């Protein structure tokens, strides 16, 4: 009887989140699935069921195809960049004699900043007549159309997002570093292990759980890129930065095709789920092969 009552209480305490999850996640997901099979724009009084035609149209659409590849391109640039940057920040902060938390907060601040504001600042910095470009032109004769060239546009968006998230991931990694027993390092130092060897044989294995977390989070980020792309490139040039979110937004709110946009969103969700699942398995294999887990 006691257990039954405790179970009820457990459900009750969990109910705010469960209700929230149903209303804002599960409900919209089911609704989105329904919409994906219609040609509804959410406004018209009438609509038709169109079977899988929205999905077929999405697979044929070059903009949707580009979203698929662009996400992985962002991943290839963003994940190593943010991992290296956050690890560097965490290790530098960890080595500081004092004011660690002040520096960590400093690095964390970009995470709280508005993506719109940071994008607009970068846009101004990279404009044709900005001091940066004027300096490059006048001194080296270098003319770069930063946001108008596919490669540089992608790199810049990835850089802004890496700048934004590096401080946040550094916090996670710092807490991981803090949990490593200092005596392990002392013993290694006595045995004459070099700093580099200490990093590869002590720090990295013991930091693996924290790195695993930041890697999963950063892979996830690449599937949700929107604000920076919306503000800086609009998905261009030539779809070079056209992400899933950008394409869903364009179809739903510019072309008023909510049904079609839902189909793209479902495809994006499936691609995201499969990708994250595969990445998670690969990371676990990496940890197991090296004996870190």
């Amino acid at each position: 009887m006691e257990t039954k009552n405790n179970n009820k209480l457990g459900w009750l305490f969990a109910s705010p989140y469960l209700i929230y999850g149903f209303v804002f996640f599960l409900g919209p997901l089911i609704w989105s699935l329904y919409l994906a099979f219609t040609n509804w724009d959410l406004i018209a009084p009438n609509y038709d069921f169109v079977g899988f035609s929205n999905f077929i149209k999405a697979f044929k659409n070059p903009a949707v195809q580009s979203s698929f590849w662009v996400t992985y391109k962002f991943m290839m640039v963003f994940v190593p960049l943010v991992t290296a940057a956050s690890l560097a920040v965490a290790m530098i902060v960890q080595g500081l004699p004092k004011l660690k938390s002040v520096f960590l907060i400093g690095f964390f601040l970009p995470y709280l900043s508005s993506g719109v504001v940071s994008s607009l600042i970068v846009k101004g910095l990279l404009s044709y007549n900005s001091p940066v470009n004027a300096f490059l032109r006048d001194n080296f004769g270098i003319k770069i159309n930063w946001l108008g060239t596919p490669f540089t546009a992608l790199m810049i968006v990835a850089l802004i997002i890496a700048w934004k998230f590096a401080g946040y991931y550094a916090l996670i990694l710092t807490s991981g570093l803090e949990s490593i027993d200092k005596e392990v390092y002392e013993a290694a130092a006595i045995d004459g292990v070099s700093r580099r060897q200490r990093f590869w044989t002590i720090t990295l294995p013991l930091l693996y759980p924290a790195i695993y977390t930041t890697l999963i989070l950063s892979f996830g980020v690449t599937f949700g890129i929107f604000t920076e792309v919306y503000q800086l490139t609009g998905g261009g040039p030539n779809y070079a930065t056209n992400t899933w979110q950008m394409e869903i937004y364009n179809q739903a709110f510019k072309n008023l095709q909510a049904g079609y946009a839902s189909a793209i969103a479902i495809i994006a969700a499936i691609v995201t789920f499969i990708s994250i699942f595969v990445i998670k398995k690969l990371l676990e294999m990496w940890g197991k092969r090296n004996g870190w887990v």
Partner: protein
Amino acid sequence: MKKKLAMLLVFTVAISMLAACGSKSTDNKGTAEGVTAIEFWTANNPPQQAYWESLAKEYETVNPKIKINVSPMKETPSSEANIQSAIAGGSAPTLSENISRGFAAQLTNSKALVPLNTMAGWDDIIAGRKMTNTIESWKFSDDNQYVLPISSNAMLFGWRLDILKELGYNEPPKTYSEMLDVAKKLKVKYPDKYVWAKADLADPAAWKRWFDFFMLYNAASDGNKFIEGGKFVADDKAGIATLGLMDNLRKENSLLAENITDPFENGVGIFTDIGPWTLNYWAERFPELKYNETYTLAAPPVPDDVKVDHPKTFADTKGIVIYASAPKEKQEAAMEFMKWVYSDAKHDLQWFEKTNMPPARDDLSTNDVFKAFLDQNPALKKYAEAVPYAVPPMDNAKFNELQTFIGQEAVNPVVRGQIDPTTGWNNMKKAIEEALK
């Protein structure tokens, strides 16, 4: 007891959270004590909001049975997205302004707007405001009128007159070959300057085509329609010539399609599209720019073989719509309000003075009410004179998709030098025809 209290607390918190997330419908309130309250969303532009707030207040004293709640529409991520969400969520206003013809076509396609011409009082507005000719081009393909145009901004091109004079010209070029001559001379004197410096030329966003492609195309084709009755009817020769001008400027290294801050104002470019709203911005930010001294305004240039006295241009027009989701009583109250506003030309003058945007009426350059204001503002007079030659945007529900193709398939790759104008035009035509099927 403690458990019961805890359960009650959790339940209350959960319900409060959900209640806080709900949005209040703004337009389903009934009539209170014989007063009809209507919701009016204005553009998120302080002068426009102030204008409507003051008129609403004045109207409430004339007709206390109608209360008008004026509020600016949200613009994040876009006003269109907010209107769409409001309609879908059942919280649409009674009426809103700042609606373009293209967006109205999308809403009409979803039966979200009231055909205004079917409402009592419509004819009075048209006659009272003297806009019989202007309103004709606003008719939708089903012969109904869904938008009451407030202003008609006949877009003009600005030229840096100071730089043109340095190159030996006293007035802007009128034809493409004259424009290319300017480009050649400009590059000799100022290798770092460009005729046309505009990042938007490389941006596929649909609305950007109104301010580059359509201005030039309307002039080159003498206003030939682009899409009509769901069919692509554009003038191929004029379209290719328009893209050809962009391509030739690029070849002369006189076209810069890169992210650049205020290129015309800083003199990096000497040619740009200018709407009347820009004049207020310049007065504040760039007071050194003086009309007919530093810059001048002109109709779009035309291909050499096009002989017209008044080249056509694009009309950036916005208007008022009434939403079908509003109760009939509120729709009628909204119509009453509009009738009152447009029964007096002085209200249009106030609009013109506050926003610089020419009211959409036939008698703008002849009505004495506007004369003094136009005499004081010669640049605005130029806009008022161009109103009859300005073509409003297409009324196709797929306008966003179609205009994105103009950018993606034609304008963007041509300005980047990736394809020639004819190939760009044909690719665009194919994509548009496919989308219209």
